[in-house]
Each structure stands twice: as structure tokens, then as C-alpha cells.
């Protein structure tokens, strides 16, 4: 089977050959030198002149006088703080309804890194790209720094003095608190107190992308307006209809962890879950599915109905597309075969569709098994119609005051103009948002909230599972927690910290228990009484004696009365259109929160590999008709792929038009286009967001109950304009450097693996036969001597079966290793600096390919081609197997990068970090103008995020993955200081984990000492020997990173038919 990242690779075009041959895509500057010799603008003689002058100048400058450096100690040093030692504080990442228990790494008073909290049973230490990037938001220069009235700075006292009477003088008009989903029990309590102080006021929840459909469907089916817990780990058959549960749907970190459990393979008894995915444009969940079927957005309801019928044994009807019909039959068969261990989820926001999904799950016996009603997920609470009603009230002038926190409806409501007008009709408007976002700009009073790393608080991501929030840094600006404002205005005596403490002391019983809970960061079921919402002191004794055990999974009582009405509603709903539109969320940017974060903007989208933009996703088939690009023709594929300029299309929906560039993405339904939400922000969100992409919320529509993010009647036409998109798809393409192409990827089907488990081992043996075979390859395959690694030999294993491509590791690596942001223009020129990339490989048909993700970092080859060619020995091997890169020794010849078969070395083309000894060296001829965001990242405030244990690299040096050398050194030192062997994963105790490993929500990456017989890496490699392979093993680089082959749970014959289709 052939694996390809780009269309050029698929067709093996000239452009691709050039790309994979050359590390650097710039023309070498030989031409000018050849032409004129001494007449060229910068001749060799000039060069020597400048070199001589600058050396002398530097010598004179350096020898004049050494600057006197000051060392200023504490005046009164707290006993538990040691300068230079990092401390970890358990806290909670909260963004709208998403709450993730995390640890904030604090170095000398500055939070610099976020790690997952392993005590949380929900995430079990996993994080996402957005959680990892959230520490940078703390140091965002676009944050509001002080309270404002009418955009003028005021003190908190002044604003309190002005707001309190304003709220009391509304002459009966109600106050509305408008928030995004609130999971914090104490915040809810504070809101309740406020509401009881101002009778008639109410709390409205508005989520930018809501789960209204599910909430209302569950109310109709089960009598509970809530979302149950899903247990993907218990499911042996999973069918998803457009739910991107590994990327953006409800609780992706939790689901990813559960899902990966079902995908872990035991070599002796190879079994795994089966995942069938129906979707319109390719998501990362679809990319991970065993089988994937395409449909139009308007067919979602029909598919759900057909699946219900099929599961009930009535056969598939109402589906015209043959492949899709077969897919539904297949799905029904798999689901029925796993009664009680089957799960169907759906991403639709339509109440009727979700009711049908409930009926399917009920028919499959999912309740109490794969769907657990004993605990509910609280991350999505907003009901779209509530907000629509609020808008009408506001427009009618019947709302006296509007207090906004978290929500930003001017940006995220489809009818932005209506929201604007409505806000203008409210007498008192207060915003607590921490940036001057689109809604906040219209508010009279602004009291910016703290960042979560500066806040006290709590969260209840799932009922009964609590997570506490404590500050990791003193507030940077004159901000105040919004709960403090609420409490103050409702006349409470305590501040919010006192309020939170009092609340939890009541639940937990003692100061000691509260301290313990704060230290752990989580309170799990079994620690507190069930009826937490009614907190009073008499509960405390009950809390101690009468704790509830961890909840047992239960199903709900299903009410089937609505299924018939839902069916008829779906049948009479919208008709299939010619071109249909779907609005989706990206893993990094989400509904728009990530837009101001440079790390997330520069994180390549897992599927499209594009950075810094949103765009219209179209299928290769549509490209042929619409853009006149036939990807099977080499020249056309190259013309499309090599240049960043993409054709701009005009998309029109409901008479609203937006121009965006079009990207051709395999795996898109031919009649469907997709556009990402969350872009098109104003400059107030930050330099990273300004002018990036377009806001497409206006393409959504409201059907009276819920917001619909699809549209069956979209018009698309070519405008003739071009627009540059920075796509990393073709960057760092690599394959066998000599002669015949061999695939870098190995993959199996589950059946294959069962029937022929040694397939990969045999394949490897065959490849290595000329050089001593598997056994003697290390020593016989080379003329170089083999060096001993006497104590520690670091190794890494990446399980491609677990990797879902979410990008958390890439952002974690950015944060840990001070990797610079280079901006869109530099990414366009192949200059991105990420030390690790996740290569997305397609295989199979162009229209609906299979996808494999391969995280690729420096392979730390024991026989590294880069080391031999460095003229100054700036890169060398150490006795622990790490390929070292010494920045201060590097002179920038880039020979190493040219000789690296994996293309993992990065060159600092410009002074991205302001680390250069010479000021103002960032913009100069040859480098070109850098994007403003590069300078923004070097702002004094933003630089506080830098990891002081890692050198900030300057212009003209190569850098690459170091296996987190600062972490290996720190871990070794800890073991030495305690005079004990290094803990490398035995009993899940770790001295050293790399940043990528620690951030991974699915534990796909294992790292440790290969020489230690009990280490996790040794055990992983031994237990998975039959799936182990090394990338480009036959060129004898002897990498220290191995991969475990992806196993896809499909039957052989099906795969073959898919190829034909």
C-alpha cells in the first residue's frame, strides 16, 4: 500500500522529488557569485573585510569593561521556596464549560508549563493542545489591564460605587447574568445569592457551539436535561455520526483516553474495538476510525433513522448512495453483534436526530454499560432558544442590566447585528471578559476577570467529580475575579476566596481536608456527600460519616413516545441541496478562544496541515469541476501544492457572502464544503488573531430551538483572486534517500495480525537481510564501531495505534523548549521551528483515504548521519544515546540538516527570539519582514513564559528535539541526590518524562531507560515486538525512537472494495 502526505507524493511528481531530496527549499546563492565574481554586491573580499572588522570590533567592545551584574536576594525568603526549583500547584483549566484538572509548573514565581493532573479520574493526566497553550494566555499582551467605565480607566472602588446604585435603580427591570456554561458549584451559589438579592433577575447560559439538541433530546427521552457520561472504553463497537469526540466534542481528553484503551493491542490476544464513522469533512476522529463513510450534512437525520431501523432489524431504507447504505448495514451489524458493548454518538445539534440516537442506544442496551446516567457531563449547558428569547427581551427594552462573563454573542451568534442592537437597548451593561472582545466593546462597565492561573475557584466537570482552582501567580494586572464582583454587589461579607473555602470546609469537614483537597486539586466521588448543592453546616457531619461510594453506572428510563414524532420531523425536514456547507471547529482554535494564542495559530491543523487561517475545504472531485485542478495530473497537482497561493472562492449562504481560499482535502464529501469557526477576530483579541481568517458564524442558522451549523443551500464560485495559505503539508517530506522508494509507514489490519502476527518482523528481516539481518544488523550494517552505552540509554516508543493526532504534544514541546513562533510568512517559506511534527499520511483512494498519524521528532540515531558532517562538532552523540545539539558551537552551515533523512532539524533563519547579541537584527535583507507576532512573542510580558532551563536560540543556529535533555538531567540529579536508581516507569513512577509523553491524552508515547529491565520502555518494546518498527531502518541510522504499527480493525475484502470505489 502506498502512503502519501501530499498529492505530489501520491503522483511522485518532480516537485515532490525535489522537496524530499532537499532539506532547504531556498535556492542556494551560487548564481550571483558565479555571475560576477568581485562585481557581485557582496564579494568574498567584502566578506573578509566585514569579518575582520566585526571580529576586531567585537574584541574591542568585549575587552573594554565587563558590565557589573547585580544579585538581589529576597529580603525575607519564604522557607518553602528555593530559587531555581520548580513547584507544581494543582489547579483547574477552565474555559467556558471545559474544565480540566491540571498542575501548573511555577518557576521562581512564574507559571511556565501546564501538566495534566493524574489524580483526576476523568483525564488521568491527559491534556489537549488548548490546555497546553493556556499558559501563554496568562501573558497575553491583549489582556485588559484595568477596570473601565466608558473605555476610561477607573479604580475598582469607583466602578463599585457606580454600578451598585445603577443596579438598584432599574425600576423593576430584571438583571440578566449571561455566561457560557458554568461548572463551578460556588460560582452557581454566588449567582444564586446575587439573584436572590435582586429578585426577578435571571441567569442565561449561551455557548458559542452548544449541545442544545442533545440536552433537549435527553430531556424528552430520559427526563433529564443533561449529558450522560460516555464509556468509550467499555464499547467494542462505536459508531459516530459526525461527532468529533477525539477533537472537539463535549469532553475530548476523557474520550480520547477511553478510546485509546479500546485500541490498545495485546499481541497474544489481539482484540480491539471497532469504530465506524460517518461524516461530511475529515475530522481527526474520522481519521482514526477503522472505517469511514461520507455523507452530506443534510443526510445526518436520514442516516440516524436508517441505522435505527437497521438495528431494529428492519433493513436500511431511505438512503440512495450505495456505499453509504452498505456502511449503515455494516454499522448495524457490528453494533448488534456487540449488544451491551455498543455506543452510537452524533454531533448533530438537532433535537430530533439526537432523539433517534437515544433510541438506537436504547435498542443496543447501551444504558448502564457504555452510557452512564449516574454521572453527567456538565461542560455544555447552554440552550440556544434561551438566548434567542433573551435577545427578544433585550430588543423589547425589558432587560435592565446585562452582566456578561465568558459569553461573546456579538461574535458567536449568527445574527451579530441583532445582538449589537439588543445590547444598546440595555441600560446597564457590565462585562467581566478578560479581553476587549466584540461584546465587551459595547459594554459600559468593564471589570476584567483574572486568568485561571491567578484565580481561586472550583469546577465540577462531571457530576460528583470536583476540581479545585488555586492561583499560581499574583494577579498581573488590576483585575478582579468576577465572582468577587457578584458577591460584593449582592452585599456578601466575604470575598470569593472566603466563600469558596467556607463552602468546601462545609463539605469536607476540616481545614486539613481542605488543604489536602487543594493539594490534590481534585475531589472525587466518595469524598463528599451527594447533595452538594444544598450546602449548610449540618451537612458536615454527614459528609464525614455518610459518604457515597463511587457511582455505579446506570442507564436512564427511556421514554420512547417521542421517537415517532422525531422520525416524522426528520423525514419532513430540509431537502438535499446541490452544495452543502458544514461549519466545524478546529482542535486548536475551537469556537474562537484559541484565536489569540500564537502557539495554537501556528499549530498545523491535524488534517489540513494549514496554519494561521481558515479556508473552504473542498473535495478533489469538486476541485476538478470548480477550480479546474485535476490532482491526477502531475503539473496541476504541483501547481496547486507547491505555491502557497490558493484560489479564492466566494461562498454565499442566505444572501451573505464570504471570500476564502479553497483547500483540496481528500476525504471530503464531493458535494460538501467545510469552513472552520473561530476566525476573523478583531485586533483587541491580540496580534495573533488580528486579520486571520474570516468569521463564519453568520452562516449558521436558528431553527427555533437550536443553532444549525450546516446549510444545504450554499453557493460557491471562483473569484479569480489568490490568497496565500501557510500549509506545512509538503514541508519535511522524507522517504528513502537512495534509489527505490520504500514506505516509511507500516500498517496492518486486525485480521492480518491475527492470522499472520509476524508479518512486520518478517518484512523487517527481509529489508535488513543484506546487512546481517535483524540480529546482527546493528554491528554488521556499518563500518563504524559500535559504542557502549554503559549506564543509561534513552529510548522512545510511539504507538501509532494510540496516537490520534491531536497536537497536544506539539504545543507541549513549544512550551517546554522555548520554541519560537515564526509567523505565517515564515511558515510559508518552510521556516517553521516545531521540533516535533505530526505527519499525516493518507493511503488508499483519493476520495476517501485511510489516515495514519506519525509524530516525528529527532530520532536520536545511534549512527546519526548529521553528526559526521558537522565541520565544528556542534552535534555529537553522548553515552546515553542522545544526539546532542550544541547551539553555542554551531556556525550554521546546515550540513547536518541536509544530511538528516528524517528532516527534523530546524534552522533559525532570523532572530525570532531577540536572543541575538546585536539589537534590531530581526529585520534585514535576506530575512525579510517578520510578522508582528514574532515581536509580540518577544515582549517582556510574553517572555515570562520562557523555560529558564532551556537556552533561547539565536539567529543562524540549528536546533532540534533534545529528548527534553533538561528533564533527563533533572531526573537523574533527583535520583542521585536521593542515592537511588532512576525510576523509569516501573510501577508508574517516573523521574523523567518528556514533555510530549506527559501531555499525551492517550499515552501513545513511552520514554525511558532501555538498559533498565523494568522500565516502561523496555516492557513496551518487549510486549509489542511484533508491531515494532523503526522509520527508514534499512539505512542503518539506528534510531532510538521506535514506532508500533497501526492496526486497523477492518476485514481484508472490505478494504479491497473500498480501493475500487
Amino acid at each position: 500500500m502506498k502512503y502519501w502526505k501530499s498529492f505530489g507524493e501520491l503522483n511522485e511528481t518532480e516537485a515532490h522529488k525535489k522537496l524530499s531530496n532537499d532539506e532547504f527549499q531556498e535556492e542556494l546563492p551560487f548564481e550571483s557569485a558565479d555571475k560576477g565574481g568581485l562585481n557581485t554586491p557582496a564579494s568574498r573580499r567584502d566578506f573578509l573585510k566585514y569579518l575582520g572588522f566585526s571580529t576586531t570590533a567585537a574584541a574591542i567592545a568585549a575587552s573594554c569593561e565587563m558590565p557589573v551584574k547585580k544579585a538581589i536576594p529576597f529580603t525575607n525568603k519564604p522557607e518553602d521556596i528555593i530559587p531555581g526549583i520548580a513547584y507544581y500547584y494543582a489547579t483547574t483549566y477552565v474555559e467556558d464549560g471545559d474544565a480540566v484538572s491540571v498542575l501548573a509548573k511555577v518557576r521562581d514565581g512564574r507559571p511556565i508549563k501546564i501538566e495534566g493532573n493524574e489524580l483526576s479520574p476523568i483525564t488521568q493526566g491527559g491534556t489537549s493542545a488548548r490546555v497546553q497553550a493556556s499558559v501563554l494566555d496568562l501573558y497575553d499582551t491583549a489582556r485588559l489591564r484595568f477596570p473601565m467605565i466608558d473605555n476610561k480607566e477607573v479604580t475598582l472602588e469607583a466602578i463599585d460605587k457606580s454600578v451598585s446604585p445603577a443596579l438598584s435603580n432599574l425600576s423593576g427591570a430584571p438583571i440578566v447574568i449571561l455566561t457560557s456554561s458554568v461548572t463551578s458549584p460556588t460560582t452557581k451559589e454566588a449567582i444564586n445569592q446575587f439573584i436572590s438579592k435582586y429578585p426577578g433577575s435571571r441567569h442565561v447560559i449561551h455557548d458559542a457551539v452548544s449541545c442544545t439538541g442533545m440536552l433537549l433530546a435527553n430531556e424528552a427521552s430520559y427526563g433529564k436535561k443533561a449529558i450522560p457520561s460516555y464509556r468509550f472504553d467499555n464499547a467494542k463497537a462505536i459508531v459516530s455520526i459526525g461527532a468529533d469526540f477525539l477533537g472537539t466534542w463535549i469532553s475530548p481528553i476523557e474520550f480520547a483516553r477511553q478510546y485509546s484503551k479500546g485500541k490498545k493491542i495485546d499481541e497474544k490476544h489481539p482484540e480491539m474495538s471497532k469504530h465506524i464513522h460517518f461524516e461530511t469533512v475529515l475530522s481527526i476522529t474520522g481519521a482514526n476510525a477503522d472505517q469511514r463513510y461520507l455523507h452530506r450534512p443534510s443526510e445526518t437525520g436520514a442516516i440516524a433513522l436508517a441505522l435505527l431501523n437497521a438495528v431494529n432489524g428492519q433493513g436500511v431504507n431511505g438512503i440512495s448512495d450505495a456505499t453509504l447504505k452498505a456502511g449503515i448495514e455494516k454499522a448495524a451489524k457490528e453494533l448488534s453483534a456487540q449488544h451491551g458493548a455498543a455506543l452510537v454518538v452524533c454531533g448533530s445539534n438537532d433535537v430530533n436526530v439526537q432523539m433517534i440516537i437515544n433510541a438506537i442506544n436504547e435498542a443496543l442496551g447501551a444504558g448502564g454499560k457504555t452510557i452512564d446516567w449516574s454521572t453527567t457531563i456538565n461542560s455544555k449547558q447552554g440552550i440556544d432558544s434561551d438566548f434567542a428569547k433573551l435577545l427578544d427581551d433585550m430588543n423589547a427594552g425589558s432587560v435592565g442590566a446585562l452582566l456578561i462573563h465568558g459569553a461573546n454573542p456579538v461574535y458567536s451568534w449568527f445574527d451579530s447585528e441583532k445582538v449589537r442592537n439588543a445590547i444598546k437597548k440595555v441600560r446597564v451593561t457590565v462585562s467581566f471578559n478578560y479581553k476587549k472582545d466584540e461584546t465587551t466593546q459595547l459594554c459600559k462597565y468593564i471589570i476584567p476577570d483574572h486568568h485561571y492561573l491567578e484565580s481561586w475557584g472550583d469546577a465540577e466537570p462531571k457530576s460528583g467529580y470536583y476540581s479545585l482552582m488555586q492561583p499560581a501567580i499574583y494577579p498581573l494586572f488590576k483585575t478582579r475575579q468576577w465572582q468577587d464582583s457578584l458577591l460584593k454587589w449582592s452585599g456578601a461579607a466575604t470575598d470569593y476566596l472566603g466563600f469558596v473555602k467556607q463552602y468546601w470546609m462545609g463539605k469536607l469537614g476540616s481545614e486539613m481536608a481542605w488543604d489536602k483537597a487543594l493539594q490534590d486539586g481534585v475531589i472525587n466521588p466518595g469524598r463528599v456527600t451527594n447533595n452538594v448543592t444544598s450546602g449548610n453546616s449540618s451537612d458536615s457531619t454527614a459528609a464525614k460519616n455518610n459518604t457515597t461510594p463511587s457511582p455505579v453506572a446506570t442507564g436512564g428510563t427511556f421514554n420512547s413516545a417521542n421517537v415517532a414524532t422525531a422520525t416524522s420531523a426528520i423525514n419532513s425536514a430540509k431537502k438535499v441541496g446541490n452544495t452543502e456547507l458544514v461549519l466545524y471547529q478546529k482542535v486548536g482554535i475551537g469556537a474562537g478562544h484559541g484565536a489569540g494564542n500564537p502557539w495554537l495559530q501556528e499549530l498545523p491543523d491535524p488534517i489540513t496541515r494549514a496554519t494561521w487561517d481558515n479556508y473552504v475545504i473542498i473535495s478533489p472531485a469538486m476541485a476538478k469541476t470548480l477550480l479546474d485542478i485535476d490532482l491526477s495530473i502531475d503539473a496541476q497537482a504541483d501547481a496547486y501544492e507547491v505555491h502557497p497561493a490558493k484560489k479564492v472562492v466566494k461562498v454565499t449562504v442566505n444572501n451573505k457572502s464570504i471570500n476564502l481560499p479553497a483547500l483540496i482535502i481528500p476525504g471530503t464529501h464531493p458535494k460538501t464544503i467545510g469552513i472552520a469557526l473561530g476566525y476573523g477576530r478583531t485586533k483587541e483579541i491580540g496580534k495573533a488573531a488580528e486579520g486571520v481568517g474570516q468569521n463564519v458564524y453568520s452562516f449558521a442558522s436558528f431553527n427555533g430551538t437550536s443553532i444549525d451549523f450546516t446549510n444545504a443551500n450554499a453557493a460557491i464560485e471562483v473569484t479569480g483572486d489568490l490568497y496565500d495559505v501557510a500549509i506545512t503539508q509538503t514541508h519535511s517530506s522524507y522517504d528513502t534517500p537512495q534509489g527505490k522508494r520504500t514506505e516509511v509507514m507500516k500498517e496492518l489490519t486486525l485480521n492480518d495480525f491475527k492470522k499472520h502476527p509476524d508479518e512486520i518482523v518478517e518484512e523487517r528481516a527481509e529489508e535488513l537481510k543484506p546487512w546481517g539481518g535483524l540480529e546482527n544488523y546493528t554491528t554488521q550494517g556499518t563500518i563504524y564501531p559500535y559504542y557502549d552505552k554503559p549506564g543509561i540509554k534513552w529510548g522512545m516508543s510511539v504507538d501509532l495505534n494510540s496516537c490520534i493526532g491531536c497536537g497536544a504534544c506539539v504545543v507541549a514541546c513549544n512550551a517546554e523548549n522555548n520554541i519560537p513562533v515564526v509567523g505565517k510568512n515564515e511558515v510559508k517559506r518552510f521556516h517553521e521551528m516545531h521540533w516535533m511534527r505530526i505527519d499525516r499520511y493518507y493511503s488508499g483512494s483519493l476520495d476517501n483515504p485511510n489516515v495514519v498519524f506519525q509524530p516525528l521528532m529527532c530520532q536520536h540515531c545511534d549512527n546519526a548521519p548529521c553528526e559526521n558532517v558537522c565541520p565544528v562538532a556542534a552535534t555529537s552523540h553522548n553515552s546515553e544515546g542522545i544526539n546532542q545539539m550544541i547551539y553555542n558551537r554551531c556556525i550554521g552551515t546546515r550540513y547536518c540538516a541536509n544530511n538528516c533523512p528524517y528532516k527534523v532539524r530546524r534552522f533559525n533563519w532570523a532572530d525570532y527570539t531577540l536572543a541575538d547579541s546585536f539589537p534590531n537584527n530581526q529585520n534585514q535583507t535576506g530575512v525579510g519582514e517578520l510578522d508582528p507576532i514574532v515581536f509580540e512573542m518577544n515582549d517582556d510580558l510574553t517572555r515570562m513564559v520562557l523555560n529558564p532551563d532551556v537556552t533561547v536560540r539565536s539567529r543562524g543556529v540549528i536546533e532540534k528535539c533534545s529528548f527534553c535533555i533538561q528533564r533527563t538531567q533533572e531526573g537523574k540529579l533527583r535520583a542521585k541526590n536521593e542515592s537511588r536508581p532512576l525510576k523509569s516507569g516501573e510501577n508508574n513512577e517516573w523521574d523523567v518524562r518528556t514533555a510530549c509523553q506527559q501531555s499525551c491524552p492517550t499515552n501513545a508515547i513511552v520514554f525511558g531507560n532501555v538498559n533498565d529491565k523494568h522500565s516502561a520502555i523496555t516492557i513496551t518494546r518487549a510486549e509489542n515486538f511484533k508491531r515494532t518498527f523503526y522509520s527508514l531502518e534499512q539505512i542503518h541510522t539506528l534510531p532510538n525512537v521506535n514506532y508500533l504499527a497501526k492496526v486497523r480493525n477492518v476485514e481484508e475484502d472490505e478494504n479491497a472494495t473500498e480501493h475500487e470505489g
Partner: protein
Amino acid sequence: MSHLRSITQKLTAAFIITFLFFTTYTLDAQDGQQLFSQNCASCHAVNKRLTGPALAGVEERGPWRDRKEIYAWVHNPPAFMKTNPYTAGLQKEYQTVMTPFPSLSEKDIDAILTYIKKAPPPAAPGTSTAAQQTAESGDSTLLFGILTLILAIVAFVLLQVNANLKKLADDKEGVPAYEPIPFYRNRGYITFATLILFLLGGYWTVAGAIGLGRTQSYEPQQPIYYSHKVHAGTNQISCLYCHGNAQDGKQANIPSINICMNCHMAINEYKGQPITDADGKEINGTAEIQKLYKYAAFEYGKPWDASKAKPVEWSRIHNLPDHVYFNHAQHVTAGKVQCQTCHGEITKMDEVYQFAPLSMGWCVNCHRTTAVQFNDNGFYSIYEKYHDELKNHTLDSITVEKIGGTECQKCHY
């Protein structure tokens, strides 16, 4: 004479032992010394009143003639005080009660008392034999230099004599002689001299260029004339009492003001040996303590409010370039290297200067020759191959270099 030698030997031993924080010694008095500097020295000196009384002759005072009373007191002073009027008097005099040390065993206390008994009376510093030895070794280079110079002059004179004799002989034999050329116009000499100058000039230039940015012997003026000789030398305060973070972290911190005030709340004047700075000017120790009080916003005899203090802006002496990672804990705790190895004889420095060049060659040389705590530290149990080789005596010791201590990315990342 022999008596004098024994005193100087003891003194030397005392100086050295003060800074062996980690090595365990079997001898009682030495144990006692270690225990004393770890537990007592922050408030007590043997011959000096600090926060607490001087401990010399303690066993002849008050209730302390009975050892059991001492044990009881050390383990729980507040409880003891209730029963004993003498200690109540002490509290009045010193305005504070001693910290309890329940962890000190009776044997430990015995050892400390033995040390106190045996501790020498205050003596003039700077008479150690070690210093004399270094001075001697310094002399020999000079001696060789002078010898070389004398030999060179002798050779030169002999050459001249030889030339004159040859001329005389030539005259005698009637061989026509050229006009003698003075040595300063002799081509041979000129070439030789030029060559020497060129080599020396080249050497100085290269050495100077390599030394650019290095600041060996750097001794900046500090805002307070803080004498390490007085604190670490005369008063034998352990280095780690003030620079304790050197055990745990990357930085050996500069002590915060509250550390200074632990003792200087009580010690407000300097009564020791006169201190003179590098220019020979006498330093008024008491005035320097007053400077500290100014930073600390402290008035003698009144309670101290630490929140009003202002930090002292010390001039940093040891500066490593940004691309070097250095960790104190690695050397002090894991490597058990003594502070003096890199910082010189701090106990004899009034104002501290940079003792070592802190160059990469200096670091690497030490890593090549220093043996790691290979058998004592459990971490190294994974190096099975080396343990075998040590057993077979194919290896004598494991140097830092052997375990990768000279690899680039041990310090540059």
C-alpha cells in the same frame, strides 16, 4: 616547639573540618564539631556571645554541671525553664528562648560538649601550615625563573668570552679579523630576540583573547563590607547556613536579610581582629553592621519588622555565560564536592574574589580527574559493566568523564 606544631596542626584540622559537611568522622570531637556547626552555630559560638551565650566553660555554670540537666534543657528549653530560675535569668538577658532540639541524642550532646571543651581558644588566623605550603610551592616557580635568567646571562657572558678568546687567538695566529660586531647588531642575536618576542607576543595575544570575558580574581566592591573571613573563618559558620540552597537547587542563593538578622539582631558591634581592605584601609565592622540595619530597617533592641526591609544589591562575582548550565546541587549533594574546590579558601577572604577561572577547560579538567561517588550512590547501580570492572580491578575508579561528564550536552542545552 613541638607544642606549637600540635596547635597549628589542630588549627589546620579545624579549618578543614569545618567545611567537610558531609563526610562522617568517627572521632567524637569531630562529630561534635559537625553537630555544633549544623545545629548550634547559628546562635552560639564557643568563645563569643551571639544570639545565645558563649559556650566555653558551659559545664561550670548554673545547673549545667549535671549532664542530665543539659539533656533536658536541649530537648525542651521552654519546659525546662519553668522549673529552673537560672534559665529564666538567661531569657531575660538574651530576650529569647533557645530552639528545642529533640532530635539530638544524648550521645550527640556529649559529642558537642566534648568539642566545646576541646575547642581551641581564639587565635590569630592565617598561621596554617597549608598556607605556608602553598607559599613555598609558589616560590619554586620564581626560583626556577631566576635560575633560568642567571643561566641565560652566564651563557651570554660565556658566548661573549668565547668570541673574545677566539678573536685573541686569531690575532695571535695572524688571521685577519673583521671588526667585531657589537652583540646588539649581531644578526643571530637579533633573529633570536625577534623570534622570542614574536612567540611571547603571540602567546599573550592568544591567551588574552581566550581570557576575554573571564574574570578570574574579580573582586568588586560590595554595598556592605561583608567579611567571609570573620563569619566563615573566625566564627566558623557553616557555608550552608547562609547558602543552603546549594544543596537543593541550581543556585547557591545569596542569603536574604532575615538570615543575616537571625544573628545580627543580637550582634550589633564588631569586636574581633581589625579588618583591613585591599588598600590597607581599616574597616569599621560595627559601621558595616549598621549598614545592614539600615537595609533591614531595624533598630537595635526593638522588634524587627521584616516587611519593611529593602534588599541589598550585591555585585555578582561568579558569572557564567547564558549558554552554560551549572547546578550547585549536582556538585554539592550528588558529587560531594567541597565549596573550596571552586571558590578557594573562602575562610581567609575578607571580600570574596573569583578564585577559579570558570573556563570550560577548567571545568573539563576537573571532570576528567574527579572520581564520582560510584559505590556509595545508589544511582550508579545501573552501571553494571563498570561495577564488574571495578571488581576485576581493570578500573581503579570511575571519573566523571567515564559516566559522560565531558559530553557537550551535560552543560550546554
